[in-house]
């Protein structure tokens, strides 16, 4: 058997760092669930949400009218589809949501709008209906107006969503990838066995980072590429800047994962800590909706979270084509997380 590893004839494959990094890849690709969560799940999520929130042609709102005159007047408005109904049928249609508004005449020429004012569609229908009725009754508009429609890529929900999912995915895979593997090795006493060999301890930790870097490329390409090819989500910033941001984000979350795993001995405890750390960020950091929706008092804290910083930076890069200089504050926040977590993790780390 030809065998590298004889004294004095060492090949790069005999390097412990290479071997440790290979172990990381092997563990990863031989774990079908990990492959699913890292590559398939974010794409399914993006596809699902992209379909659900796709921009449809401006909706036509169904309304009911009780007289032929009113029906005629409302038919001039393109945003409404009008149906003439008897009084009881109109009541029934309104209650079941078949129409969003019922327009009824009343003695003295007054028109009555019946609708649910907590329903935005009802309010919109009322405005459109009122406009149509007033105009057909001869109202003249004092100011002339024109509509110019804007439906370009970059301002749709899917454009907002893809950078959010990318950030969330980078966080999840970095933290789980490192935290789970380390706690598992400690629990199985494998880590103790490794430190009983002459293996340089820094190589052990470094192997996680190296494997992360390679997987990162595939991960980012999968999510961003999917968004770009299927939904036309723009990539307006330079790809090099995007890569730099993903790298920095992944390193910061790796350090956070390392910190969480630095002392824990059981998978259950690690899972708990991971979820406690990640869950709030999924909610407040603007993955699915803007973090601006939270009260102003919370904004400084939310902006200091690593996921907020990463997603903000990714959106600036991908959607607005912002350079690294523009996202320097976010990069600074990620850098602080990286340095502080890594230093703490090294200090606390338990090798057995």
């Amino acid at each position, binding site marked *: 058997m030809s065998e590298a*590893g004889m004294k004095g004839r060492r090949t790069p494959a005999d390097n412990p760092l290479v071997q440790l990094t290979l172990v990381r890849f092997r*563990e990863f690709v031989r774990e079908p669930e990990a492959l699913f969560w890292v590559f398939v799940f974010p794409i399914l999520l993006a596809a699902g949400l992209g379909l659900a929130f796709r921009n449809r042609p401006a909706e036509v709102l169904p309304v009911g009218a009780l007289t032929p005159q009113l029906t005629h007047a409302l038919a001039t408005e393109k945003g409404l589809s009008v149906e003439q109904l008897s009084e009881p049928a109109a009541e029934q249609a309104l209650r079941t949501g078949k129409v969003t508004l019922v327009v009824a005449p009343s003695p003295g020429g007054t028109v009555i709008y019946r609708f649910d004012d907590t329903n935005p569609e009802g309010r919109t229908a009322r405005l459109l209906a009122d406009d149509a009725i007033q105009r057909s009754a001869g109202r003249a508009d004092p100011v002339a107006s024109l509509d110019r429609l804007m439906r370009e890529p970059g301002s749709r929900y899917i454009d907002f969503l893809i950078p959010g999912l990318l950030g969330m995915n980078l966080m999840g895979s970095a933290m789980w990838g490192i935290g789970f593997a380390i706690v598992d090795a400690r629990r199985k006493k494998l880590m103790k066995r490794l430190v009983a060999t002459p293996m340089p301890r820094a190589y052990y930790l470094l192997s996680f980072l190296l494997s992360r870097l390679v997987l990162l490329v595939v991960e980012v390409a999968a999510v961003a590429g999917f968004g770009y090819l299927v939904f036309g989500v723009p990539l307006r910033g330079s790809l090099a800047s995007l890569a730099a941001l993903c790298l920095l984000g992944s390193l910061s979350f790796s350090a956070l994962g390392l910190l969480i795993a630095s002392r824990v001995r059981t998978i259950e405890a690690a899972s708990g800590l991971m979820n406690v750390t990640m869950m709030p960020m999924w909610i407040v950091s603007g993955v699915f909706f803007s973090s601006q929706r939270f009260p102003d008092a919370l904004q400084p804290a939310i902006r200091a979270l690593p996921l907020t910083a990463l997603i903000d930076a990714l959106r600036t890069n991908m959607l607005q084509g912002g350079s690294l200089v523009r996202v320097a504050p976010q990069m600074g926040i990620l850098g602080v997380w990286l340095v502080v977590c890594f230093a703490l993790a090294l200090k606390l780390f338990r090798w057995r």
Partner: protein
Amino acid sequence: MSVPALPAALRVSRLRKTYKEVVAIDGLELEVRPGECFGLLGPNGAGKTTTIEICEGLTSADSGEVEVLGLDWSRHAGELRERLGIQLQETQLTEKLTVWETVRLFRSFFRQGPPAAEVIALVQLVEKRDARVGNLSGGQRQRLALACALVGDPHLLFLDEPTTGLDPQARRQVWDLIERFRRAGRTILLTTHYMDEAERLCDRVAIMDRGRMIAQGTPRELIASIGVEHLVEFSAAHGAVVDTRLLESLEGVHAVRSENGTVCLQVTELHRAVPALLDELGRQGVPLTELRTHSPTLEDVFVALTGRRLRDE
């Protein structure tokens, strides 16, 4: 005690270690000579694993001295890790890796040593080379753990309960391997709570109990030290009452112990004691259901020293 020309492979003196309030090791003295297979014996909780892990540099002692291959853990840790072969109790190697990948990984940590393929052949796992660790049997996993201990061509091997939990056939395979290492001139320190394992493999043994060493010597010396040549055990038919005090005065009988209906006699002259015993039991009218004689084992040494039995788990 030590042979002056050869420095000890391992020397431990006045070793102490406590965990919270439990004293795990209480003033242990130990010396392992180069080329010998030395066994640390004792029941669970005797302090065997703590002792071996201190010698492996994985646990620190509270006080005392440990010298391994003439080196000191505080100053020569890197050098020592290159020269020791270690098999820990209960290590689970990565299940997703193959035998070959696992041995390659461990081999990469050491400056020198045999090629991975050679070590795999040595532990007889050639056919399992590309099998995942998760699919190996208990015995095969244990032999893989031994391979990982051997990849650095160690001067001193530490084996912590190498056959615990294995079936008899797998145990014998591991024993064969350990005997081969010893014949190849490696120094071995192993822990076990199986007395038969220690008798078969070890040149010398130390018996530990509650953190202290209670006896040390070759298995033959230790067995001789209890001054008994043979043991005779018998069981009487159900309900029969044996007057054991009368048995003590029989010719050649040293001591009599009775446990769970079985009576055990420590005997020096079997050819006189057995006929005398049968006569006496006939006189007492006790029908025998079982009669056995055997030479004393380390198990009997432990019983003689502590009054307790070694139990598995």
